[in-house]
């Protein structure tokens, strides 16, 4: 429930604010400055310095409150500078100035309170150091809230209060993120070494701190990455009909609630940041499950720690029709332990299950395993076999492409059906999103250099939900920009997650085409680059950097026989409904398209006719989107980078020109 807007009165002026927001925000919003020492806009207030006091009246009762941590209420009248307030502040300012006479922020705040002399409060505690610690607490909170460490804290009471690390010693767990130094208003904490010697460490730090602040303040109302990591989208994908179920036949399932992020949060996740994949990351999206007792395999009965599950792990399991969270964690553990890719295992097994249910294979092939959708125990047994190099597991371990070719070669069932439902491109299994209703994503998947992984392009919302890239040219532009932008992260060893798994609160000010890029976050990365190297970066330069590598990758793919139009063509399951059951499950959608897009009357068509017509239409649309994307990328209509494009990018080496198209 979004908070209500209410009216309050500040210094005789009416202002509208969100109920329960802190009074200081309303005061600042009304253009009134308050003296503060312990307030920081991105950190939880604790009201210790008491300089921000204001006088308020509610229902005839007047009192002084600290504005930084007092929530606004209906019918509240506020005076920010009444006589009582001024007297209170003045006394405090004298005390602060008496103790820290040479600290600039103290001098400044005292001046604003009308105090220039703190001599009356001079004592043994008086510290003449201009960079003395004034006990504001910013550093303690930044360590905790920005990066979820608790290295710093206060010890001692009253006048003995002081800042310290555990046991008064330098703590080896401090990761040197510098958040504490960045927020320190006096310079009491200083950075004495910048490893890697960036050209402009402050530039990097300023932009990194923006990310930290967004994580501390926005994430809990946006993606909850800190709380549940990437698993937060399990329920989102289900709601938008995008969660793969039964080998991508469907995008939703009534049992998704059994494996969604709330279940993982409440019953499984015990650790944040087990990967430490990016030292000091304030998002720490990786999660872990501790003390999980395994039910199968060589470690049966052991209590283990499991790194995950991520969204893709859950998606791989729903794709197999497995909605048991214990199974998901066990599958996660054994895939990791055996070194099996979870996505390929899940998507591969889902294909096997559909083939089993369709009679392409039987228990005679599987060594007796009834590999139907939802067969959790059988999946685990198959994974164990795979690891031991035994039985049907060995066959499944070859991957979808090998299985397809083998079963077609052996004349099992309908070859077209097997081709249509085997969800791989270039020999790699699809990751866990249903792309059927997004033409741009179908291409984003199938044209990706390494195969259908979504880390080159995830365009489903832009395309299918927002309808913001309706023409082929629009889609081609998205298929140009996003793969290059995402390639850029890899080039620089930077994680993509803080680009779009948290968004600035005011990203809404941009029109959709720009908003989708999250311009301020793109700028953060440009500043990381500039701060490190000294070289300014803009979109054009970034795209050129990436395009050189992306085209090189594509040429490598050409060299290995994968970089062609034929290899960019997906199985039909990625484009539309293969089976009758699948068509009927979304008949309203598909009939609607026949009617509105093709001008046909589905009432007058048989189910076979409808499926065939839709297929012809969708396949031709896909060809058109490939044409447009190739043209935008400077590739031939066979999907091969042209010599002209290589020259333009300055990578026209003889070896590469030999692979390029004319």
């Amino acid at each position, binding site marked *: 429930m979004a908070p209500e807007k209410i009216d309050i009165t500040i210094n005789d002026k009416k202002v509208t604010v969100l109920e329960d927001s802190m009074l200081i925000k309303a005061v600042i919003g009304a253009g009134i400055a308050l003296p503060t020492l312990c307030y920081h806009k991105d950190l939880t207030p604790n009201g210790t310095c008491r300089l921000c006091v204001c006088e308020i009246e509610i229902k005839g009762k007047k009192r002084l409150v600290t504005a930084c941590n007092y929530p606004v209420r209906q019918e509240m009248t506020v005076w920010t500078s009444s006589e009582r307030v001024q007297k209170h502040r003045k006394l405090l300012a004298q005390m602060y100035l008496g103790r820290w006479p040479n600290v600039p922020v103290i001098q400044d705040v005292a001046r604003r309170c009308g105090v220039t002399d703190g001599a009356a409060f001079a004592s043994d505690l008086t510290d003449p150091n201009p960079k003395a610690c004034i006990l504001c607490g910013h550093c303690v909170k930044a360590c905790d809230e920005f990066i979820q460490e608790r290295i710093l804290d206060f010890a001692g009471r009253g006048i003995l209060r002081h800042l310290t690390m555990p046991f008064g010693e330098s703590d080896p767990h401090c990761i040197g993120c510098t958040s504490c130094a960045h927020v320190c208003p006096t310079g009491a904490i200083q950075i004495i070494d910048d490893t890697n010697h960036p050209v402009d460490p402050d530039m990097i730090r300023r932009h990194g701190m923006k990310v930290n602040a967004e994580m501390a303040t926005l994430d809990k109302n946006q993606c909850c990455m800190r709380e549940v990591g990437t698993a937060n989208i399990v329920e989102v994908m289900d709601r938008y009909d995008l969660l793969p179920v039964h080998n991508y036949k469907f995008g939703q399932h009534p049992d998704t609630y059994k494996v969604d992020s709330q279940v993982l949060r409440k019953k499984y996740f015990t650790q944040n940041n087990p990967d430490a994949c990016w030292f000091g990351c304030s998002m720490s999206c990786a999660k872990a499950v501790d003390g999980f007792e395994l039910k199968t395999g060589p470690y049966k009965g052991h209590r283990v720690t499991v790194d995950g599950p991520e969204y893709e792990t859950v998606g791989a399991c729903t794709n197999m029709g497995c909605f048991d969270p214990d199974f998901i964690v066990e599958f996660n553990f054994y895939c990791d332990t055996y070194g099996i890719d979870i996505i390929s295992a899940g998507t591969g097994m889902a294909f096997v299950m559909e083939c089993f249910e369709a009679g392409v294979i039987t228990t005679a092939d599987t060594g007796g395993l009834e590999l139907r959708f939802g067969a959790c125990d059988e999946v685990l047994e198959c994974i164990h076999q795979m690891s031991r190099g035994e039985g049907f597991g060995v066959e499944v371990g070859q991957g979808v492409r090998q299985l397809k070719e083998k079963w077609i070669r052996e004349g099992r069932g309908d070859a077209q059906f097997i081709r249509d439902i085997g969800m791989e491109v270039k020999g790699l299994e699809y990751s866990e999103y249903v792309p059927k209703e997004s033409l741009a994503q179908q291409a984003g998947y199938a044209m990706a250099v390494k195969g259908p992984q979504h880390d080159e392009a995830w365009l489903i*919302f832009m395309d299918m939900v927002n309808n913001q890239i309706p023409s082929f040219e629009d889609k081609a532009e998205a298929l140009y920009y996003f793969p290059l932008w995402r390639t850029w992260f890899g080039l620089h060893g930077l994680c993509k997650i803080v680009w779009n798994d948290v*968004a600035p609160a005011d990203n809404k000010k941009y029109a959709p085409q720009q908003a989708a890029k999250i311009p301020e976050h793109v700028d953060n990365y440009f500043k990381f680059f500039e701060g490190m190297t000294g070289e300014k970066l803009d979109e054009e330069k970034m795209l050129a950097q990436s395009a050189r590598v992306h085209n090189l990758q594509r040429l490598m793919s050409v060299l290995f026989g994968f970089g062609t139009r034929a290899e960019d063509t997906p199985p039909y399951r990625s484009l539309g409904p293969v089976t009758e059951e699948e068509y009927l499950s979304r008949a309203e959608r598909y009939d609607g398209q026949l009617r509105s897009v093709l001008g046909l009357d589905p009432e007058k068509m048989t189910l076979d006719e409808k499926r065939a017509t839709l297929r012809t239409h969708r396949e031709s649309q896909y060809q058109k989107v490939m044409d447009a994307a190739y043209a935008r990328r400077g590739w031939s209509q066979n999907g091969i980078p042209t010599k002209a494009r290589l020259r333009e990018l300055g990578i026209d080496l003889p070896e590469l020109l030999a692979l390029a198209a004319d």
Partner: protein
Amino acid sequence: MIRVNNLHDIPWREGLTVQDVLDHLKYSYALITVTLGDELVEPERYADTSVPDGCAMTVFHLAHGG
């Protein structure tokens, strides 16, 4: 009738609010930006902002994940 994202036509009725439209389309995503014509609608106003008949509404979903 109102049109959402130039994609969905939704029958209009007296008192139809932004929240009703979001519920109707099952749009329950965290990173949504709603505009009515050119006007941005803040989340705390979804429930009491009426959608005029014939209005073009956009519900922009900022992709995350992926």
